[in-house]
């Protein structure tokens, strides 16, 4: 029996496999942006499961990306060359390493999630932020992983197909999950935890599940990133990288996967656009500086969005009102 979403997934994967043959014709600059879009879609759609559908607030997503990046790189560096050099072998090792990175990140998600998800929104945000910073600190000290020098030497296995195949799979998983009776539990937790418990929903289980799944996909994204750039550094997975992903989720509309995909695409292109703007010499000096620092724009974007359109550009966020204050 073939379900519609399954057919759609297979068709998408086949299309990507076909398109992948033409990807070689794109200039390296645009190819770089294209892969960046795919990776950000995986990150943002995954995080949307936690921050959007389940109503929690994780602010340390880059930390899980780091776990995946380092774990998968370690795997390919260690086992990549011992398996022989056939295309099939290297691809197998690469995909297995990606999955290994994802599982490592999921495990990290479980360890962080179980204690911290008992907390409410603000606390969770700060704890995840803290974990993000700690993991960065640990990586900076970890000699076998290159410490401050970063880790390099991975082959470029990441291509158009694998990036967008995993993006499609992430979207498939999230949409099919939240669309099912099983997955409605996530939304119930977001809407009203007490009522959800009263309806027999184990709210802790759902929160941890969302967190672990999101961490898994972040791990995959980290692996793709590492095997694209062929060099990773602890600073690449800092708090600001996490903010990047959070902004994508919020701009797209928390709990709106299509919106988040569009936002991830837009916000991957935006820094490139801003970089171009900052080179216009006829612009005033300060404006060029602002364009160089996207975080100023992101922060203003967050504030203005929350004040005027908290549901994001594409809508679909309804939350519990703060009943304490009238």
């Amino acid at each position: 029996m073939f379900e519609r979403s399954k057919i759609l997934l297979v068709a998408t994967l086949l299309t990507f496999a076909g398109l992948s043959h033409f990807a070689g014709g794109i200039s390296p600059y645009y190819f770089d942006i294209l892969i960046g879009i795919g990776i950000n879609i995986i990150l943002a759609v995954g995080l949307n499961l936690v921050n959007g559908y389940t109503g929690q607030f994780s602010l340390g997503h880059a930390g899980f990306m780091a776990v995946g990046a380092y774990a998968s790189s370690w795997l390919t560096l260690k086992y990549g060359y011992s398996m022989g050099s056939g295309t099939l072998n290297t691809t197998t090792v690469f995909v297995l390493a990606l999955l290994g990175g994802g599982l490592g990140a999921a495990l990290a998600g479980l360890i962080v999630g179980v204690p911290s998800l008992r907390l409410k929104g603000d606390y969770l945000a700060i704890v995840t932020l803290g974990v993000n910073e700690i993991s960065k600190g640990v990586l900076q000290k970890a000699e076998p992983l290159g410490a401050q020098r970063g880790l390099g030497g991975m082959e470029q296995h990441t291509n158009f197909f694998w990036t967008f195949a995993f993006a499609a799979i992430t979207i498939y998983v999230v949409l099919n999950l939240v669309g099912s009776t099983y997955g409605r539990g996530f939304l119930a937790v977001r809407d009203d935890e007490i009522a959800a418990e009263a309806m027999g929903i184990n709210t802790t289980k759902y929160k941890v599940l969302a967190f672990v799944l999101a961490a898994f996909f972040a791990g995959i994204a980290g692996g793709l990133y590492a095997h694209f750039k062929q060099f990773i550094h602890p600073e690449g997975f800092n708090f600001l990288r996490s903010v990047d992903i959070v902004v994508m989720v919020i701009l797209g509309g928390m709990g709106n996967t299509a919106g988040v995909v569009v936002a991830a695409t837009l916000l991957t292109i935006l820094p490139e656009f801003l970089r171009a703007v900052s080179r216009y010499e006829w612009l005033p000096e300060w404006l060029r500086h602002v364009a160089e620092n996207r975080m100023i724009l992101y922060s203003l974007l967050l504030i203005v969005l929350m004040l005027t359109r908290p549901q994001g550009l594409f809508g679909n966020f309804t939350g519990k009102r703060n009943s304490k204050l009238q």
Partner: protein
Amino acid sequence: MNAPLLKLDNVTVQFGGLKAVGDLSFTIGEGELIGLIGPNGAGKTTVFNLITGVYEPTAGAITFANKSVVGHRPYKITARGIARTFQNIRLFPSLSVFDNVRTACNMHLRHGISHALARGPKFSAEEREIEATVMELLEIFSLTAERDAACKSLPYGDQRRLEIVRALATRPKLLLLDEPAAGMNPTEKAELMKLIRFTQEKFGCAVLLVEHDMKVVMGICQRINVLDYGRKIAEGTPTEIRNDPKVIAAYLGKEEE
């Protein structure tokens, strides 16, 4: 005689210095319809919160079907067969009417996350089964037409009925209703009384009813417990309660003392 379905034995709960419920004991037999009344602030909702595990009693025992429920998380207690509605309506605001009820079927799912992702025939069959169950319940409470409406857009009375539907979808043995008639007009109230009796018979579940409207309580309850300042001051049939001087005093205040 069988052991009672629910038994509260000298239950006390203290919030700081305030004893919200003190030494409360009562029982509910299988399939019984029991009322719980008392003036505002008497501790009725607290009793619900104690039974469903939102609060834990400071002292005393609560047993359901011969097993203690004290110290269990609310979702586990719901899984054992106690469902409730809320005095201040707690539907899932972003979900449709249909999805609100569907969510309550969650705990009876036989197939978990892997099936939701693989979307095989078993999954589709179960989803269809759930849809049928939900629609049947909505039909009974005449909410079929509102199936896809946002639950927040429903009139107040319909929201209260939707909460009952949602609670019934967990297939409870005991249903706790917290002021289901609040905000309803007399016609709706009469309708509600019929529905409560109907559910009691059709689903075979016992009902514990907290309600301010005496017509409703006296009209359908087999026995009534009266609370005042967290303590039980009377128990009996509607007629006995109506003529109990202590109850009258609690509601109207004593003449003098």
